[in-house]
């Protein structure tokens, strides 16, 4: 493989109707560098990458590969020019093996038209060894964790000789461990002369891997920053104002415990106990955060509360009323606000306007409807208010929600759920894909909800977020509750609990480990 590819964007402008998503963007991507793009939600990062990958045709401007102007008629052209992209929405066939997926669209055949996967297998092993991917060519995709699937996508791009790799928010769906592994892989690719364009809202990651950071605001390049820039500097550059990265919340003033879950068990459609005999309570004015590696029953727990799960036993009580067995509509009506973990699947109807999405679960209630007739005027007014309050960047309230940037879609869901009086607020991944400025705002809103006396249940795979928001932290492992610990608990102790240790054991082991640590340090002195 030759040493890299120089990629240059000159004056790229992309318009959607009257909206300018990219406004004369210049970008120089050098081989052997990780080039990060940073910007608010809706700044135009994904749009720019889609232009670069041939998915969108630029309205103006030029793409230069090794100083030669090129035009891409589709991703095929971009790939041929050495540009690969890993979508967040993986393009893999779940029932195929890794090798089959990698070969797909590029199949080599033996005499007689038989598929020849041996070469592909060999090359996958080669690449896998070279970068330490640890991917088995014969594993079936659906059995692999998300992080490994992502690596398969990267292998696919590399096998097609990609010299530039575009990664658009690759870490949003990864566990912290998977994230670390990915960052390691990026380092190796870069050492090998590949260029990587990396997008993330997590400033810590960006600082850890970047060689250069380009900040985009409202479609324009604001400037470049070195990786050594501080998080506060970066945040300020992005948003255009000072952002406080830590939440200053008052201590909780827990009131009466109005929400209780006792002995809750949820069975999956195949009969497994995905939530296994959980009991806890949340008081008014208190935030309980659930930590744990994704897939340990958090989703099912929140869905069971909203009535979305079918096989539920035990009891869920809100202000004395039993919720188990009630219809979703009634539970929403009882004042439960719910932010689902996957906004585009469960949270929004992409073809509906932003205004319609803002009333998605209140469309048949006054003031938005009287009898069967809906009130378009009031719906529009409601939309105007919350678009302004939550700073949703959209062309208009009538724009289809599916055209909004990822973070702005999240804001629409949060706005909808926080815009009515609640008796319980549940949010899974409340700030996934949201920029730092908006995280600050959303966190404040969640705390404000707590302070008016609503019990709040937060599920997040971001330990930072859990530590930031929680008054108490519950840890789930394989559907069981490992314990509920106070807000100040150390990361190490939480980590042990997430790996399946109960609270007391974890505390003991952590204390021991710390003691040893001080011993060693003491010994060195």
């Amino acid at each position, binding site marked *: 493989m030759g040493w890299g590819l120089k990629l240059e964007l000159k004056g790229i402008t992309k*318009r*959607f*109707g009257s909206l300018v998503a990219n406004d004369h963007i210049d970008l120089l991507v050098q081989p052997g560098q990780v080039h990060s793009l940073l910007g608010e939600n809706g700044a135009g990062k*994904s749009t720019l990458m889609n232009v670069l990958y*041939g*998915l*969108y*045709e630029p309205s103006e401007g030029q793409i230069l590969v090794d100083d030669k102007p090129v035009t891409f*008629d*589709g*991703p*095929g052209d971009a790939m041929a020019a050495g540009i690969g992209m890993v979508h*967040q*929405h*993986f*393009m893999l*066939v779940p029932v195929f093996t890794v090798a089959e997926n990698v070969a797909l*669209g590029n199949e080599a055949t033996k005499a007689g038209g038989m598929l020849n996967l041996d070469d592909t297998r060999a090359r996958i092993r080669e690449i896998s060894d070279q970068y330490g991917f640890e991917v088995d060519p014969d594993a079936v*995709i*659906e*059995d*692999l964790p*998300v992080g490994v699937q992502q690596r398969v996508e990267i292998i696919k791009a590399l096998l097609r000789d990609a010299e530039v790799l575009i990664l658009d*928010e690759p870490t949003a*769906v990864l566990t912290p461990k998977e994230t670390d592994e990915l960052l390691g892989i990026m380092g190796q690719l870069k050492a090998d002369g590949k260029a990587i364009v990396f997008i993330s809202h997590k400033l810590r990651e960006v600082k850890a891997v970047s060689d250069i950071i380009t900040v985009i605001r409202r479609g324009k390049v604001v400037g470049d920053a070195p990786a050594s820039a501080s998080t506060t500097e970066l945040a300020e550059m992005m948003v255009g104002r000072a952002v406080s990265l830590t939440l200053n919340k008052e201590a909780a003033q827990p009131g009466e415990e109005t929400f209780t879950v006792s002995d809750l068990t949820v069975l999956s459609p195949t009969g*497994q*106990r995905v939530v296994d005999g959980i009991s806890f309570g949340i008081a008014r004015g208190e935030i309980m955060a659930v930590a744990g590696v*994704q897939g*340990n029953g958090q989703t099912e727990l929140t869905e069971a509360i909203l009535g979305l*799960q079918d096989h539920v036993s035990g009891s869920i009580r809100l202000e004395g009323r039993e919720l188990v067995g009630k219809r*979703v*509509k009634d539970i*929403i*009506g009882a004042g439960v606000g719910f932010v*689902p*973990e*996957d906004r*585009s*699947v*469960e*949270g*929004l*109807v*992409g*073809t*509906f306007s932003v*205004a*319609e999405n803002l009333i*998605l*679960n209140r469309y048949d209630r006054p003031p938005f*409807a009287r009898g069967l*007739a*809906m009130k378009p005027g009031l719906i529009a007014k409601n939309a105007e208010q919350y678009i302004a309050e939550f700073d949703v960047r959209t062309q208009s309230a*009538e*724009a*289809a929600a*599916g*055209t909004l940037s*990822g973070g702005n879609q999240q804001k629409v869901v949060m706005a909808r759920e926080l815009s009515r009086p609640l008796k319980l607020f549940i949010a899974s991944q409340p700030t996934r894909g949201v920029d730092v400025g908006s995280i600050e705002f959303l966190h404040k809103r969640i705390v404000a909800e707590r302070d008016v006396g609503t019990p709040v249940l937060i599920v997040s795979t971001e330990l930072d977020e859990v530590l930031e928001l929680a008054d108490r932290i519950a840890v789930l492992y*394989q559907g069981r509750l490992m314990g509920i610990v106070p807000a100040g608990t150390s990361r190490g102790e939480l980590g042990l609990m997430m790996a399946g240790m109960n609270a007391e054991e974890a505390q003991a082991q952590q204390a021991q480990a710390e003691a040893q640590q001080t011993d060693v340090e003491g010994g060195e002195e």
Partner: protein
Amino acid sequence: MSADEPGRQTRKRHERGSKSAVDGDEQRLVAAAELGDGTQPPPAVPATGESLHPELREQQSVMQRIVTGNALVSVLAVVLALIAGGILIALTNEEVARTSSYFFARPQDMLGAAWTAASEAYIALFQGSVFNSDGSTFARMIYPLTQTLTVATPLICAALGVALAFRAGLFNIGAQGQIIIGATLAAWVGFSWHLPVGLHLLLVILAGIVGGALWGGLVGLLKAKTGAHEVIVSIMLNYVAINLVLYLLTIPAFQRPGSTNPISPQLDETAMYPPLFGDTFRLHWGFIVAILATFFAWWLLNRSTIGFELRAVGSNPHAARTAGISVTKGYVIVMVLAGALAGLAGTAQVAGTEQVLTAGVAASFGFDAITVALLGRSTPWGTFAAGVLFGAFRAGGVTMQTNTGTAIDIVLVVQSLIVLFIAAPPLVRTIFRLPEPGQLTAKPRKTASTGGAA
């Protein structure tokens, strides 16, 4: 925990991961697929596990795109189909065949003959469906238009039903059966009850609605309760309906006194739609009912809570369920409504055009309705316009055949080509060099929320 637990968990995670089009990127991916990049496989379809049909979303997006496509694509599809039809007319014309034997000597002869054949056929089609300039009186001149509207009446009603179901994500192939059952019930009330003017017609209309609604509702109920696929169920119910009416026409209660022919007695005068413009024209008040039905469907879809639910269920059942909308209830409701509208079509046939019940009462309206709904992009007023167009094809096709000898089958070919072009928007887009969908959707999506306002 069982040994395969980790596997399950990762699978679950994978599903979430693969479905999370976190950037609303679905549209872009669709754009990618449409841009025809052969190296990309289709988006992964999640394997198992979601409480709701997991494959629904992917399927849905493709179907939704076809049934709620762009208005421009609809218009261009008609244009293309007409051009292709014109070429076919020319190819089958005798004069063209004769002049083609010396094509290389005098190509203009053949091209001229081809042009004449195609244009004469289409002029005849126009004269037979809109305005006959050869007519002796004004009434005769506009008679074709009233014929078009008469044929369009049942088409529009039935197609509205199909369109509503499309919007809720259901493929209602059962309009044919729903028309038949609606017509049967309406006819029976029409000829066996004897009631005063006004009341009788009202009950006939109601009977048609109830008959269709029952037949449609059955499909919805079966889908909601057992998960049976609506396409299969509605096709089967079409057979049941046609055989049921065939049987009914063999029993005395449905036959004319003293006759064993499979034809019902004529409906009472009081049971029939009065003519709209006097006895010279066949156009009847059923057309006004069709206009009202279109307005009703528009209001229902875009201004009522029921329509909100149906559209939500149709475009993202997962989000609908999370918002407290019952997906299964939505299926039942929309199929009842779809059936009711098809029942109105049946009523228009027996109480308007045909005035008796025969086994052929539904003609092929139930199937043409699918095309009409597609062409109308599943919006009520679009469907109305498409229904009128198809009415014109049918009414004018006859004149075309008698005046120019062009086979009426050409009309069928044109109709079929329209479906083909609509189902293949990328083709139309390439032919006319339309921009990619990403750019089209960039306009504020007024159409999505105000539907048939066009």
